[in-house]
């Protein structure tokens, strides 16, 4: 609880400083999918995912059951499009991991990563990683690059946010 309060305080101090200056982008997404061993399906899924907003490249690792998406330089991958595409292609989504360049902010005392050009704000989870982001480093105007696992956990009162990003790796840009 103490750590969370600390993070919130630091965040409130620096948020205006970095606001509105950074480009946020979902750069990469790794999707764990069951059933990829069938090429007729996996090639089909590849085709469907290429149609998603912001996707430049799709690479399928059939052995590991992972689809890797890379974004275009100008456009963010629209995370909300991915799950329906996977489902409609007849697959079951196992997990989602994303690398997002973004701007830290707070909405109703919850840490979020704002994704420019999209309505998607990612709720951030992992107090230790967040503390590291906010302390002992010079936070510049380049924002942060965060890699983490995306889930649909939503804190109370934050139903508007489709994803929580549990930070696995974070770096100040």
């Amino acid at each position, binding site marked *: 609880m103490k750590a969370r309060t600390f993070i919130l305080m630091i965040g409130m101090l620096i948020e205006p400083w970095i606001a509105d200056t950074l480009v946020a982008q979902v750069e990469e997404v790794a999707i764990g999918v069951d059933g990829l061993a*069938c090429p*007729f399906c996996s090639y089909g899924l590849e085709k469907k995912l290429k149609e998603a907003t912001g996707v430049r490249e799709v690479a399928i690792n059939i052995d590991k059951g992972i689809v890797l998406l890379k974004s275009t330089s100008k456009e963010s991958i629209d995370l909300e499009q991915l799950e329906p595409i996977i489902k409609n292609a007849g697959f079951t989504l196992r997990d989602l991991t994303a690398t997002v360049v973004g701007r830290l902010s707070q909405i109703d005392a919850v840490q979020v990563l704002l994704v420019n050009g999209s309505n998607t704000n990612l709720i951030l989870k992992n107090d230790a990683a967040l503390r590291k982001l906010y302390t002992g480093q010079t936070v510049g105007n380049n924002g942060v690059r965060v890699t983490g696992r995306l889930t649909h956990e939503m804190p109370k009162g934050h139903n508007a946010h489709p994803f929580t990003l549990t930070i696995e790796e974070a770096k100040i840009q």
Partner: protein
Amino acid sequence: MNARGLALACTWALLTVLLVGCSRRQPASIEYVSEWGREGNDARQFKEPIGVALDSDGNVYVADAGNNRIQKFNRDGEFLKEWAKKGRGEGELDRPIHLEISTRGLVYVPEYGNDRIQVFDTNGEFQFSWGTTGKAPGQFDAPGSVGFDPTGHAFVTDFYNHRIQKFDEKGNFLSSFGTKGHDAGQLHYPTDILVDQHGNSLVADAYNHRIQKFDKQNNLILSWGRQGKKQGEFEVANALALDEEERVYVVDFDNHRVQVFDEAGKFLLSFGGKGAGTGQFNHPTDIAINNEGLIYVADWGNNRIQVFRLVEH
């Protein structure tokens, strides 16, 4: 000859006919002949070889899906040429699947990624193409295979549209049949089609785990198979071939085997089994049989083509 003698002679004659008939219809075994290929992108190497087709000279064409190219070999697997690279332009490919050689000797390549059929001559020279993404007549959503009837009409399996579309050999739309579903005559992700000499079409109804046979008017006349691992059952029936005796060879993807049936869908034998050894498969995806009875199987997961022969007894 008295009546008893006549009856005996008739019985003997009948038995002989039946035995000869049965022996022609019941192949005893499959013999491994040869193989070629390993993972890579050089000549004679593959990355996910998903389709195999034969021309009238016995040359072998392989849709090398992961390398987005076509490789051509002679009947013994000696490399002859390759063409295409990944792309959307003329002569470029994005996930070529079950290619086929037309009655006029042109190579028809369905592309999942580009939702079109590209046609080449046997030297790899681009001829023409058709198809765009969509659900309208003549459009595709992941075309997976092409089959030809004796008059040269092209039948295309349209994977995500769960239908078969019929074109003339230039790609002009003629008709279509099939709707998504599990009932008789419906389709659930069809992946292969061939048309027999009578004009009946056999469809690999992959995710219904069955083969369906339709007459010229697209009426269902025969269906067999269900999901499972036993004889006559399938785990994704994804490709088909016919031999000169009209036996039907079905590639049983997730059971890593090929099953052989008579023209009525009666199980005759199977071969393969999961593995990387001689005669084994890792997710086979296509099959083609030449006029000498050589059977070419695209062993997708093992990045090779294996060749077999049916031995009559």
